[in-house]
């Protein structure tokens, strides 16, 4: 499995194709301290007002802060607003 991923990664580098498209990698856009737009997520693991955990293709993303609201939830897109204090990648 890892070998295959490695091969695809090489191919993508060679052809100069964005990796997030080929490898299904998450793409995170943070606007200021209050808005997060996440593409290629794999579902929400936990949601509360001061903690959100989102599943990714590898590991998960943990957001800590205050007053989190999931502004929109689509099959592979996520839009969260709130006061963000930390963003962590965990396995």
């Amino acid at each position, binding site marked *: 499995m890892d070998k295959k991923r490695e091969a695809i990664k090489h191919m993508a580098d060679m052809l100069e194709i964005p990796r997030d498209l080929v490898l299904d990698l998450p793409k995170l856009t943070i606007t200021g301290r209050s808005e997060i737009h996440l593409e290629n997520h794999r*579902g*929400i*693991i*936990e*949601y*509360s*007002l001061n903690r959100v955990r989102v599943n990714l293709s590898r590991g998960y993303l943990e957001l800590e802060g205050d007053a*989190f*609201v*999931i*502004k*929109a*939830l*689509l*099959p592979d*897109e996520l*839009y969260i607003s709130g006061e963000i204090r930390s963003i962590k990648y965990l396995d």
Partner: protein
Amino acid sequence: MGNSFFDRIGGTIKVTLRGKNQERAINMASTRGVFLWDIKKRGDDLDLKVRASGFSALKNIAEENGYELEIREKSGLPFFRTVIRRRLVFIGGAFLFVVAMYLLSSFVWSVEVGGNKTVPQERIIVAAARHGVYPGAPKWTFSRSKVEAALLREIDDLSYVQLDLKGVKARIKVVEKIIPRQDIDGPGNIVARKNGMVETVLVLDGQARVRSGDVVAKGDILISGLVIPEPSPYLAPEEQEEMEPGLVKARGEVKARVWYQGYGECRIKDEHQYLGHKKQSRFYLIIPGRLLSLNIRQTASFPAYDRSVRNHVLSTRWGEVGVKRVVLREKIKQVTLYSEHEALDRAQRTAWKDLKRQMDPASHMVTSRVKMISSPSEPIIRVKVIAESVENIAAAQPINTEAK
């Protein structure tokens, strides 16, 4: 995310989700293609919004997995249905109003003509009516450019026609052809325009047929375009050349004394009627086959009146419908007694007016005199004014060479 306009059209529902591990439920909904937004934790509950179209899928998920779903708020067009049903008559009236406005404004209610000077207005209106533009005509039955073209074709004296539709008014703007004055190109005579006695003759071209002191009648040739050569006085008869008569365009000025007469009269006891201030209007409703009176009083409150009728009528397929208005204006008889002097003065004034009407404004009056022609016993004063003027009576007239 999402389009709030289309959310409004389709309707949105705000729900509260209760139960354990609500994340699982929203993940399932999102993987099944149900769009969720504004997801917010409120204590143990989860508030979220879903489109009306996706609500049943969310409800199924909640039921299958033991969640409790509570509808908190419905918004958008589909949920206005109860309001609409309660106000059905009001909304129907509003709709009817719009329809009536549209229907009434899609007819021509009046036709106006402007820009014409010599072509009578009736002729243009009748021609336009023949091509579909008349009061009561539906606007969709004629095309503006076609009517314009048809009017131009039908009335030769017009060089431009513009049909404007301003609301329910049809305005026809025309420009008339200016036909160039027919100047005489070929040979021509100068003839007398009026009867008179010739004073001076000035010939620029042609041959004079009259001289000072001659009395001429209207139409007499004054300067002839037909030039008959005269023998030269400086040459001996045997040296004279034989010359053919030639045709020219006669030009020149002939001044003559012209007499004018004006007549005027005035009665010593003059009866005169004028319109008073009192007015009375009567209204009638015109419906097909009948004329309904809308008046309480049927008789006029004054003995003599002037009657004018105005109809506002729309022709429909069932006949004519409209309003007829009759306006009665009071007429007052006035009797004036003039002294002989006043009557003479008035008669003279009308006589002068009559005389001035006949005269050219440019002509120069030389002498004038007033003559009373009524006998003293008559109850009427009759006056004649005679004036004499000197003016140019020359008028060009072509010589018809083709007829010869």
